[in-house]
């Protein structure tokens, strides 16, 4: 008799817990679903904005416009052949031999103030310097 009653209460409690849990989960799912919709909407919006912005970027980087801006604000010029070279055109620093670079590196003294750059760009650094105050 008492066993039967205990079992009944037990089951009732289980049903109650299960019902509450189900409700709770459903409620959470609805919330997450709302969140998903909101995020998706935001993604759509962001994506549209990205499309507009990248189109605008492409518009603003028209070569002709960049060229005009360069002439107005910078003293940069298009790269010429004088500024291009290959690695084997760079001579070794004095004191270094043409051996493997890795092996000779530890032996050479640390770069000091006397170490002069081995390569000079034709035309010097002027080629790529920015005119002071040219930006305004």
């Amino acid at each position, binding site marked *: 008799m008492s066993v039967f009653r205990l079992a009944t209460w037990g089951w009732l409690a289980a049903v109650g817990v299960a019902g509450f849990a189900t409700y709770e989960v459903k409620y959470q799912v609805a919330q997450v679903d709302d969140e998903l919709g909101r995020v998706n909407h935001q993604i759509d919006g962001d994506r549209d904005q990205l499309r507009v912005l990248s*189109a605008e970027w492409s518009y603003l980087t028209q070569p002709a416009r960049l060229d005009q801006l360069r002439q107005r604000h910078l003293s940069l010029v*298009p790269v010429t052949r004088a500024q291009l070279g290959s690695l084997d055109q760079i001579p070794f620093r004095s004191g270094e031999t043409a051996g493997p670079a890795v092996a000779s590196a530890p032996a050479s003294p640390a770069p000091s103030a006397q170490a002069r750059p081995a390569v000079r760009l034709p035309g010097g650094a002027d080629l790529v310097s920015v005119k002071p105050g040219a930006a305004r």
Partner: protein
Amino acid sequence: MKPALHLDENPCRPRHYKPAPCGALPKEGPEKELLETSRTRLLLTGVLFALAFAVIGFRLVDLTVLKGGDARISHAHVQPHTEATRADIVDRNGVLLARTLESEALVAYPKLVDNAAEAARKLVRVLPDLNQQDVQAKLGSGRKYVRLKRQLTPDQQFAVNNLGIPGIKFETAGFRVYPKGELTSAVVGYIDTADNKGLAGIERGLDDELKTSDDPIELSIDTRLQYVLTEEIQAQINAFGAKGGAGIIADVKTGEIIALASLPNFDPNDMSGANDDNLFNRATLGTYEMGSVFKIFTTAMALDDHVTTLAGSYDATEPIHIGRFTIHDDHAKHRWLSVPEIFMYSSNIGSAKMAVDAGADRQRDFLDRLGLLTEPKVEIPEIGRPEWPSAWHLVNTMTIAFGHGISVSPLQMVTGVSAVVNGGILHRATFLKHPDDYKPAGARVLSRQTSEDMRRLLRLVVEQGTGKFGAAPGYLVGGKTGTAEKVDGHGYAHKELLSSFIGVFPINEPRYVIMVSIDQPHPNAQSRGEATGGWVAAPAVSRIVQRMAPIVGIPAVDEDSPEIRRALLVDFAPSLGRKIAAN
């Protein structure tokens, strides 16, 4: 069959009934059998239910506690494909050239508008660029639906919405933007905004793909080189007061068109400025008598068919009289010329004789093989049909040898010259980018040796011949000049020229063919009365090469190094004279 059981005999009686002393269960017979069957069935059903519940239970535990078998499938939210959607067009480096954006259009349902005058007044107050009378007329028209304004900004939409006028609605509509504007208009083309239909260029040629594809269409065009080409052609048009110009940069190994310009051009974002002249694609639709640049084909044919060799020579002492024509050299040498000299001094007489030696049939076959007699098949619809004589007489053979009496488009020229210099393989021209490792199939149209000889000859023209202004210090340019007298209604007009230069770079191992044609240039103060291809078009190619080489990563070389000298040497019997004839 079976007698009804009395209450006391019922084995399943309720418990609170005091049972009568139970009768013994039947030990055997039909009753016992029935009981056994029932028990078995009950057991079986019970087991089935237990199994089902166990499975559901396990799955529940699995899903909730163990988070399910598979990881959660997450996928990006995809916007639906709508009517007005159209794929992007990008250049070979992914630079955006055309894109459809969405905007709100202002529309009205006049029947729902109560007071047209009042509504119009309010609308014009927030949208000052609208005309009040116009709007009032539309709203009072009694039509079902009118469109008031395209492309509202979000601010404007907000303001109109705040007016709260009944019958005024917004409608999402796509509009096409071309960020690079007129720079790429000759290739990209434009669309009819109202019905999202391509009307020119790639927009028309690949209309169906653009409507269905989700991925952008990748063109072979490089916007940076497109700018270089366009700017340099424009500079020459300005310097020589020309009517227009066209230019192409093509990859000789793949047939890809890297840049293509036709000037004057139009702005696809604002078609109000478009007219027949600037919509006309001079590089692909226009066919012209190209003049001496055609000698590239004549010489290649003669060498490839072993009609002559680099050591051969022709008598250019006297002009050729044939019928009512006289073929003469612009700056005649009045002597025998070697084959390389004929090419470098651009001798019409020598080229005509060379072609006559080869014969009309061979000439036509050769030009046909190079695709010069048929419309090229490319992705844009603006393609000119070449014009050539149906009856190929002796005089035609002679004039075609130096590029008169046959009209082809610059696109065909570039395709043909690519095949001549790239080792002899003809590739179809294309405006679409090939994948990086893709090796397009081509047809062999001339021998490797002929191609090498032609490269030497083209270099000779730039070093010592009519194309000296095409040279670019540090870079190995080869090329050929051409100056054609344009045909007007009554025959050749002496003052109207089409001046061209076809450059090949680097000539020792060709990668690019660069063609520049200037339409109706006039001599200027610097050009000593000349408006020929060598004066007008060659300097543009020289500057293009110097600007493009760093962009495409072709290093400068020492033009006088022994290896290069050897690779490009031609023995043209220099003792015969080194004076340079113009064109």
